[in-house]
Each structure stands twice: as structure tokens, then as C-alpha cells.
């Protein structure tokens, strides 16, 4: 019989190269254990609602009304929904061309894109063109679209931070490009040095790679650092000099847990720099409804904004977007609501502010609890989570532990994380899933478990970790940077 089309040997090699640890080995093992009845605390993915964070009330009211517009005709609707939710539902329905069930413009509903543009103007102080804002089914889809547009083949390199959110490495593998790493410096609060960037580019060029783009994740994932304005200017200047398009992943812009470095967008810094930079540097910025204090991961809503991208390229990107017809309409409404929030005086304003503040304040507390908790553990060093949703402690594994991992056929941090999972039910993602310096190990956990559960979780971790270290330590000392 002839070989079959979906035989493993004949699959697209690029697909086989893809790795995505966030839902990889640890997660699969955790799911298995959960099926066997073990209590698992999933801290492997930034998925707030899965860990008990409640959705904000107002957007859910609006979208429910949009789903079932017959409610708007019912005389009793005011008993169940506040007047401002009813008004907003009517507003968004009027922006659609047939309600939630019709494909919208492939770039997203024009009225919502206009609201995004207005948000950007308020946020940055510079006007935005709705025609250059494309809504997508989650920011990830937007990232993939842009990378697919840039990458022509294996000689195209993309500068990616290490550690990074592995969507970037996965997408680059899938599209057959080359990942050019630049290492963030753990001892300098995960900062980046422009000289490292220059070296990375020269080394790549030496290998025949043309570096086309640079990814920054700000605030960082998994590292949480918030870039300073100076750092951003340096990066933009570097992109100008090297002719790179800057891909600014800013999905955690609402998640800031310190006051020294508030969020500042790449676009604002670029515009502040003035010509020639503001007119020449190509920039694509990404945002989402999945993170922040909204946490609406399941809606799959996002957008990207293009700056200084030539019109013909924009046309091509639009063309590819049109093949998928349109992003899902409910999520577009979530996006509209997120960028066009309630105002003082609105009936639902107080509740909205209370819910939002509650979430952000709690996240800030949890960022601190977790960092301190990790730092109190033996052989664990943890930078403070300045932003985003994760903690990325360094685990200094003793040589005996590394040997044991090798014997078990596991990468050392995978070995550690599996043992942690089996002992405590805490499901994390090993640092190797994000990239790290050779011989240095980490794990990523989220700061999302409920505040009241945190002390017990950190205690459970400490008990496991300190026991593990005792078991594997010897007088030879242990790995360190």
C-alpha cells in the first residue's frame, strides 16, 4: 500500500521543529495526574479566570446583550441590565454590519478600530490611523501574521530576547526562519545591553543571516521587567541603524507593579524622538484583552498597530488577513470596551473601578508575596516581578541533581519541575521552555493563584525545594552563573 499522506516521516519538517513548552511535557503530565485525582495548581499559563479571577461585570453585560439583541426589545430588560450596558450594546451593534453573526471587515469593525485609535491618542499623545490598526483573534495570531510576512526563508533572522515567551521561537520555526537570541541580564534586573544586540547581529551576519526584525516584550514574559524610556530609545535607535522592524509585544501594559518605571509604549518613545526616527523606524505594536486586569483569554481578542510600514506592505498584510475573513466579533466588542472605558458619572463606573482596582492591587501584592517567598528558599534567587503575570526564579541545582536528571533522561529544570509537580501539585513551566544561559536553570510560574491561597502554595514550594536541595547537595558546591 502506498505511503499515506499523513505519515510522520512526510510531515512538514518545520512543524516537527516547533516547541511550545507552555502546554508541553509538564502540562501534559499535570493533566494526567489531575485525571488520576490529584489536586493540581495550574500556574503554567497566564490564564487568570482559570484561577478564580472573576470577569469584569460591565463588558459581560454588554456582550450578553449583543448576543441576544431580542433582550433589548423586552420591556423588562432594565431590571436585569444597567442603562449604560444597554446603551453600549446598542452602540456596538450599530457599528456591526449585521450583529455578532456577520463577518466584519477583515481588519475588524471600523468603529472599534477608531476607538482603539482614540485610546492610543489618549495614551501616547500622538494621533493613530484606524486604517493601520488590525484586530485579530488574539495577539498571537497577529504576531504570526507579521512574522510570516517578514520571514522569507532560513537566512532571515529575528532578534528575540532570551528568556522569551515561546510563541516567538515556535512561530519562527514554523515559518522556517532563524531565531537570533539576545540575552537579558539577570543580575541587572533582566536588562538589555545594546552592545549585546550589536554582537548578536554581527554574529548572525557572519553566518549569512540577514536580521530583519527585533522582538521586545514589554513588560517582559517570563521575566516581568519594565523597560525604561532610555532603554527604549536605545533600542529604537539601534533598529534605525540596522534597518530592523521593531515588534513591540505590549500585551501586559496594564500589569505594572512598581512605580519607578511605568509603562511607556514603543510608539510614544519613537514619536518623542522626532525625525528621522519617528518617520523611518518600522514598528508593529501588539495588545490584547487576555491580560491586564481584564484577563479575558477565552475571547481571543487582540490588535496590532503598524507605524511607518509602506502602504503596499499594508495591502499585502490586509490581503492575508482577508483569507481568514474576519476576527471574531464578540472579542472585537471586548476590545472596544477595553479601550473605551466607562467614565465617572456612568451608572456602572463605580463598580467597574472597584473591580479593576481590586484585581490590580491584588496582583501587585501577589507579585511581592511570590518574589519574597522564592527568595526565602534555599538556592533560589528571584528578581522582582515588575510587571506582567509571572515569576521566574532561578533554581541553583546542585551537581548531583543535574546528574540525576541526566540519568533520568531529562533536562535538569524539567526534572526539578516534574518532581515539584508530583510532590505538591504545582504545575510550572521549566525555564528551558523560554531559553536561558547555559547551565543556569529557572522555572516560570504565574502570580495568579488567589491571594488567600498564596501563603500555602509558597509554603508547599519551600518545603519541597528545601527538601530537594538537602537531598541533592554535597560538598562540591553547585552551579551558579
Amino acid at each position, binding site marked *: 500500500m502506498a505511503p*499515506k499522506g499523513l505519515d510522520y516521516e512526510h510531515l*512538514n519538517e518545520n512543524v516537527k521543529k516547533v516547541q511550545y513548552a507552555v502546554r508541553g511535557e509538564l502540562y501534559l503530565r499535570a493533566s494526567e495526574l489531575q485525571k488520576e485525582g490529584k489536586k493540581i495548581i495550574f500556574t503554567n499559563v497566564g490564564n487568570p*479566570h482559570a484561577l478564580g479571577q472573576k470577569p469584569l461585570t460591565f463588558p459581560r453585560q454588554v456582550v450578553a446583550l449583543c448576543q441576544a439583541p431580542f433582550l433589548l426589545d423586552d420591556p423588562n430588560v432594565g431590571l436585569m441590565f444597567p442603562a449604560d450596558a444597554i446603551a453600549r450594546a446598542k452602540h456596538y451593534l450599530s457599528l456591526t454590519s449585521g450583529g455578532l453573526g456577520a463577518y466584519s471587515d477583515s481588519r475588524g469593525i471600523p468603529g472599534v478600530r477608531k476607538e482603539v485609535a482614540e485610546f492610543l491618542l489618549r495614551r501616547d499623545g500622538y494621533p493613530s490611523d484606524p486604517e493601520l490598526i488590525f484586530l485579530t483573534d488574539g495577539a498571537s495570531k497577529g504576531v504570526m501574521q507579521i512574522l510570516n510576512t517578514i520571514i522569507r526563508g532560513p537566512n532571515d533572522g529575528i532578534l528575540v530576547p532570551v528568556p522569551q515567551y515561546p510563541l516567538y521561537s515556535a512561530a519562527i520555526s514554523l515559518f522556517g526562519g532563524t531565531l537570533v537570541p539576545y540575552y537579558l541580564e539577570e543580575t541587572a534586573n533582566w536588562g538589555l545591553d545594546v552592545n549585546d544586540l550589536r554582537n548578536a547581529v554581527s554574529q548572525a551576519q557572519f553566518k549569512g543571516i540577514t536580521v*530583519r526584525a527585533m522582538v521586545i516584550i514589554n513588560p517582559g514574559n517570563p521575566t516581568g521587567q519594565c523597560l525604561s524610556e532610555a532603554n527604549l530609545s536605545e533600542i529604537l535607535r539601534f533598529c534605525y541603524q540596522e534597518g530592523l522592524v521593531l515588534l513591540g509585544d505590549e500585551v501586559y501594559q496594564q500589569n505594572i507593579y512598581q512605580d519607578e518605571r511605568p509603562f511607556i509604549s514603543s510608539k510614544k518613545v519613537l514619536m518623542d524622538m522626532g525625525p528621522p526616527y519617528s518617520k523611518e523606524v518600522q514598528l508593529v505594536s501588539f495588545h490584547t484583552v487576555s491580560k491586564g486586569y481584564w484577563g479575558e483569554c477565552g475571547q481571543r481578542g487582540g490588535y496590532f498597530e503598524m507605524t511607518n510600514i509602506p502602504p503596499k506592505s499594508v495591502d499585502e498584510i490586509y490581503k492575508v488577513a482577508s483569507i481568514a475573513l474576519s476576527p471574531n466579533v464578540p472579542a472585537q466588542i471586548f476590545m472596544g470596551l477595553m479601550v473605551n472605558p466607562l467614565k465617572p458619572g456612568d451608572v456602572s463606573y463605580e463598580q467597574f473601578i472597584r473591580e479593576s482596582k481590586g484585581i490590580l492591587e491584588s496582583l501587585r501584592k501577589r507579585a511581592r508575596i511570590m518574589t519574597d517567598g522564592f527568595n526565602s528558599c534555599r538556592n533560589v534567587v528571584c528578581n522582582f516581578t515588575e510587571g506582567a503575570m509571572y515569576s521566574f526564579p532561578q533554581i541553583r541545582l546542585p551537581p548531583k541533581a543535574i546528574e540525576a536528571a541526566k540519568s533520568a533522561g531529562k533536562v535538569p529544570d524539567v526534572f526539578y519541575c516534574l518532581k515539584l509537580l508530583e510532590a505538591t501539585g504545582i504545575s510550572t513551566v521549566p525555564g528551558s521552555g523560554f531559553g536561558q544561559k547555559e547551565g543556569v536553570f529557572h522555572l516560570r510560574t504565574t502570580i495568579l493563584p488567589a491571594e488567600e491561597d498564596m501563603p500555602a502554595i509558597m509554603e508547599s514550594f519551600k518545603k519541597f525545594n528545601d527538601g530537594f536541595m538537602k537531598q541533592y547537595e554535597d560538598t562540591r558546591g553547585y552551579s551558579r552563573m
Partner: protein
Amino acid sequence: MPNPVSVQSINPKVLKCEYAVRGEIVILAQRLQEELKAKPGSLPFDEILYCNIGNPQSLGQLPITFFREVLALCDHPAILDKAEAQGLFSADSIKRAWQILDQIPGRATGAYSHSQGIKGLRDTIAAGIEARDGFPANPNDLFLTDGASPAVHMMMQLLIGSEKDGLLCPIPQYPLYSASIALHGGSLVPYYLDEETGWGLEVSELKKQLKEARSKGITVKALVVINPGNPTGQVLAEENQRAIVEFCKQEGLVLLADEVYQENVYVPEKKFHSFKKVARSMGYGDNDLCLVSFQSVSKGYHGECGKRGGYMEVTGFSPEVREQIYKLASVNLCSNISGQILASLVMSPPKVGDESYESYSAEKDGILKSLARRAKTLEDAFKSLEGITCNKAEGAMYLFPRIKLPEKAIKTAEAAKTAPDLFYCRRLLNATGVVVVPGSGFGQVPGTWHFRCTILPQEDKIPAIVSRLTAFHKSFMDEYRN
């Protein structure tokens, strides 16, 4: 300074791919629409009628009430506890919402789900597939996606490693296939549907094209079949399907069965049979055939395009390949939850005896009967025009009339460096405001010209469309007749 994202330096596969459904004609139509808004009365028509895209609710089709009740309740479960809900929602929609929410961990519809989709919803869909086919479906074979299109892309990614990898596609075809093959760098191996026999699919044609492709060094991996057809509307006869299954088994091809129009069948002499059912009824199981079946919430009688819901059922592949598909799905984390819920509702709608059954059934029948009427009315209208022949729309949502363009028109078009069918469609748009898609967007036998027109405008708009079209066509033929 080099310019990274310019047309000279972007991925050439992006440049190569095309998608006419939202292409040139539509862009022109949008411009005309803006003109009409700015200067009413400035054009020979008062509105643009978008007959280019299968987007029923944008043209006035109403959603199924029961589905929207359940979705609204799932979006805002706080309503479920309120007494007023009893008055606003049907009892069974409340019951179904509770049932669905209980299948979602923490009742959190805002959380990323399992990358294949919520397990309980996949169970429901699998049961729906079994009820439809009489053969079991495994929930682990299901991947819920943001519409059927992303699932098609996933399969393309998996199958295409280089331009040496080919996929047999029908001509004419829905251009998602040609576009995604181009985007992923593969080769489209065309097989021609026979217009003379109602767009028949002959296995002899499949064999011929396969042989030719192989002789050119192409590894043909899969066969795409769209049933009911788009743009062609034919519904395959069961024996035809058996021959296709047999062909795929013999040649080791993956059968990619696009079945998104499975609820849209308008003729009593034809019935939809899923390829899974056909294969299983032939005694073929997972060891015999690699079959991927696509379904969507966008079409049928529900027409929920904007929700982006759908799934693929993948059967007959090894665990190693399974892992790869799962891995690809996991990079995007999951599809939108509301769309997942809707897919489960579509595959498991109200049953006889349910409180909402009567109204659901009336809504569904109303829509399907109306679609059948419109399909016939437009078919007859096209057939009445000089030089136009039109196959019946047995299913789906489109008519694909063939137009025998006069030599003079063809020459005029060519002089303007325009494809003749695009030339005709542009003139049609400018004169009547009706937007259709030129046949060249779907593929056609060289030297023949077609256009695709949806059957979706509301029934009360159809007479106006027909009269405008008829008037335009007559004047076009008067101008260019030999």
C-alpha cells in the same frame, strides 16, 4: 538604510497568494458605498448589494434564537441566578447554559481551555456526529477552531514542506485552498469538475491529474473535496463518494472533506452524507484511510460567521502525528470559547419535545426553505439572460453562472489588461451596485468565464436585483454583441 518590510523584501509566498472573495471588486464596491454615503443619488443605484460573500446575517438573516439565548447566558452567567431570567429566556436555554457551564472548569468562559477545545463540548459534538452518521466519533479526534479556515491552515502546515508537496483541489474551488497552499509554499494540483454534468467529480479525472503531477515529481499528499460544493453547489451522490474514498485509500492520500455546507441541501433527490459515514459504511476504519472532516458554525441555517466557530475531526493517523497536530493547536492556546459553545449547539440542537423545539424548527425551516426558493429564483433569472447558462444550486449558498462573453468584450478587456470576467463584474457593479466575484477567483476551464453570486440577499430584494441585472446584461450584450 535597508527597508525590511517593503514589498521587495516581504515573504514572496505572501505576494503570491490571492483571495478574490474580498479582492479587487469588493474594494471598489466599498469605495462606491462611501461615495453613495457622501453624495446620495450620485450613482445609478441607491445601495450596494454584497453578493460576493457567504455572510448571511450581514444581509438580514436572523440568528437562531435558542442559540443566542444560550450564548448570552454563558457570557454573563450572573443572569442565571436572577428571577427575571425566567421571563426573558426559555427554560431549556437556561438548562442548556447550566449544563455547558458545568462542563467548563470553574465555569470560567474567559479562561483559555484545553487546546483541542473544552472536553464536555467535544463530547457533545462527537455525540452529534454519531447521531448524524450512525457511526461513533471520538472526542479526542476533534479540534475546535476559530472557524473551519484555521483548521484547514493547520492541515496545510502539516502536509506542506515544500513546493514538491501537492494537494489535489477541485476547479472551481473556494479560494481558501489555493491561497493557503500558496501561503504555505506547496503546489496546487487541479482536478476539473465537469460543468456539463452538473459539476460532476469523475475519479478518472482525479487519476489523470494525480498521474501527471507525480510525473512532474510532485508528491501528492491529499485530496480536497468540498461537499456541498463552493462555488459550484453540487451535492455528491453516495456512489461517487465511495469511489472517491476508494481512490484515496488506494493512492495513500489524505482526504480533506470540507463539509461546512452540510445543512444546505435544496433538492429532494440529493442528501448530504459525510465522508466519514461513507468510509465507515464501506468497512474502512482508522487503519485504512486518513480523513479530516471540516465543519463550521458560519453556514447552514445558523449562519454565525462573525462568531468564528468550527472544528475538524481527524481520523486514521498515528499517535506521533496526533502529537504534532496538538502541538500546533497549543501554540495558539485555544479557539474562542463562545465559538466552541456554538459549535456544540449546532451539532446538538433542540430535539423533539424540548420547549424550544417548535420555534427552533420553524426558524430553521423558514431559513432553509427561503434559501431554496432564492436559489431557484436566481438560477432561473440567470438562465433567462442571453449567453448565460447556469447549473442548479443543489446546495451551499451560491450560483456560478457561465457567461459566453462576446469576442468584442473579451478583446476590450484584454486591451485594458483585465481578465474578461473581472471586466464584466466591474461593469455590473458600476451599473447596478451588485457585487459578485469573477470566476477567475475560483478557477475555471481556460477560455470559459463565470462569476459567483450568493443566494443570500433577502427575498424582498431579489426582484430588484433580477431586474437590474437583466437590464445591465442586455445593455452590455447590445454594446459588445458580435
